[in-house]
């Protein structure tokens, strides 16, 4: 016995490091690079006030005379502005940092809302079954038959008209989170329901019922943790989708206002000047957006491969 107990209990960190998932992560250069880029973008976005030389939200720091300076590697640039300035004279680098922060925030919060709605509805539909299941899933089908953008455009256009531009711009972040969150819950609900239907038949659920646990505890504590892998995979895809949706809506003028630009509204505001030669206002935020969405999708692909029990062999 003493030989056994002298063996030190592995710490939580080393357990994670030695897990199959961490191993496959280290073995996959695409995943490592994607993760690195994602972390860099996220860190830069979170620490935007530290990295950004200017505050794009502060009108006192903006001078219209600085407008449309090109990036520093192009002739006629100003050394102050690494990526140049936009049409209003804002430093593009600072604006992108703040914009990425907004895009990520909206994407993550919208997905959190989707996940909350979708997981609760999916769990209930799958576990209770019967009429309630049919009702909830038909609601999901109806929701899915409207495209997300269509729902979002109608909702945002109506709220914009109702509250007026000023009030809308003030709460645009919350409106975007709500509309993207609500429009996409069926994705989660369907995935979760399918997993719950499979898990519900397993004997550990019977044994939980035999031990006298109530339905809520069985759903949340026993079935949900066993259904997490598809939820993880779908979450990465949904974050990418939500960021794209936000960018599309902002591009169409229904999202973040130009005074508080996200990546989408930056691309949109630069689009008016693209033919007058100021390509950088659109191109640079565009590249950031594409890279961000791409790395998230690549991470999602990797995760799907790792968590897929059919592909997973010891």
């Amino acid at each position, binding site marked *: *016995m003493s030989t*056994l*107990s002298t063996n030190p*209990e592995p710490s939580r960190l080393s357990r994670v490091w030695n897990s199959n998932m961490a191993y496959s992560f280290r073995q996959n250069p695409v995943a490592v690079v994607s993760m690195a880029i994602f972390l860099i973008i996220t860190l830069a976005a979170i620490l935007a006030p530290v990295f950004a030389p200017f505050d794009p939200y502060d009108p006192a720091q903006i001078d219209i005379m600085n407008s449309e300076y090109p990036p520093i590697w192009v002739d006629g640039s100003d050394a102050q502005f690494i990526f140049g300035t936009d049409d209003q004279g804002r430093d593009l680098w600072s604006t992108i940092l703040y914009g990425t922060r907004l895009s990520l925030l909206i994407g993550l919060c919208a997905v959190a809302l989707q996940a909350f709605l979708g997981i609760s509805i999916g769990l209930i539909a799958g576990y209770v*079954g*019967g009429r309630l299941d049919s009702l909830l899933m038909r609601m999901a089908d109806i929701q899915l038959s409207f495209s997300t953008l269509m729902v979002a455009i109608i909702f945002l256009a109506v709220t914009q008209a109702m509250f007026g531009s000023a009030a809308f711009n003030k709460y645009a972040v919350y409106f975007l989170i709500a509309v993207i969150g609500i429009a996409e819950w069926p994705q989660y609900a369907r995935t979760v329901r399918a997993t719950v239907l499979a898990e519900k038949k*397993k*004997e*550990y659920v*019977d*044994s*939980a*019922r*035999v*031990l*006298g*646990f*109530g339905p809520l*505890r069985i759903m949340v*504590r*026993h079935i949900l*943790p*066993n259904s*997490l892998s598809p939820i993880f995979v779908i979450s990465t895809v949904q974050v990418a989708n939500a960021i794209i949706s936000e960018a599309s809506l902002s591009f169409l003028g229904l999202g973040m206002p130009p005074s508080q630009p996200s990546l989408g509204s930056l691309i949109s505001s630069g689009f008016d000047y693209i033919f007058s030669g100021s390509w950088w206002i659109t191109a640079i935020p565009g590249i950031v957006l594409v890279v961000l969405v791409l790395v998230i999708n690549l991470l999602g692909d990797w995760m799907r491969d790792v968590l897929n029990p059919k592909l997973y062999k010891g």
Partner: protein
Amino acid sequence: MSLLSVRDLTVKFAMRDQTVTALSQISFDLGKGERLGIVGESGAGKSITGFSLMNLLSRPGFIDSGKILFEGEDIVQMNEKQLRSIRGNRMAMIFQDPMVTLNPVLTIGQQMVETLMAHRSLSKSEAAHISVLKLREVYIPSPEERLNQYPHELSGGMRQRIIIAMALLLDPELIIADEPTTALDVTIQADIMELLLELCQSNKVGLILITHDLGVVSQMTERTLVMYAGRVIEAGRTREIINDPQHPYTQGLINALPQQTLPGHRLKQIPGNMPGLGALPPGCPFSPRCEYSVDRCRTTLPEIVQYAGIEVACHEVKRLHNADETQEQSA
């Protein structure tokens, strides 16, 4: 008063086009600390009996009529809250396959502590302490370490021991064990059965052992219930049933044991299959396979009669018995 008394329990399944009777008029009693075996082949309704005792049948099954009196209270009439206070707490169940019965994403400790805390107002450390004691009771080595392990880190026999420990956690009065060793290999089977027997005896826990293994029943139980096509066809003291089975089906089961045949000879099996529950014959459900069946067997259902201290549902039991005796005398 007996611990559990089941009266005329009838369970039906509502299928798409018809309602089939899975259990019909099951009645039996179980005293405190008594051990009862339920035997029968696959589909005879053994496991459904186990689940109905906890009122845990899931759709499309339902209890049609009858009473399940657990210490005088009728489980059939209880609401969900009352049932939950009984399940796991006063009545526990052990399943067939230990590899899938434990939740794979929770540690042993989490599952045990959670079970305790769901039924008793205990602190986490008290619950962990009780869990360790129970694990020790089922001879799990270094139980403190096991609490932090996940089910996949343990062997099948170890897991079944843990499941037994979990069944015993709240000191139930009755354990229903549904083929507890079918998924384990033979040497571990014997260990687990011995452990179960020892724990039931020392803690005065009632046991209902559902199995198709007559050998296990004869070692473990005091009384036996033989089921066929959803009916009890023979019930009585285990020793008497094993030594002198009255129903032709039970006789067939015992004759089919490998020990009953000389090496090199074909096993004596009962011809045919059990009829599907949707297509039961009008008379005795065993009549199509029974070598002694007469016209009456095919038309009328036999009532349960007392014969030689055994309750048996067979028209011809007297004739069979006399025939046996005359054979013995002439031999």
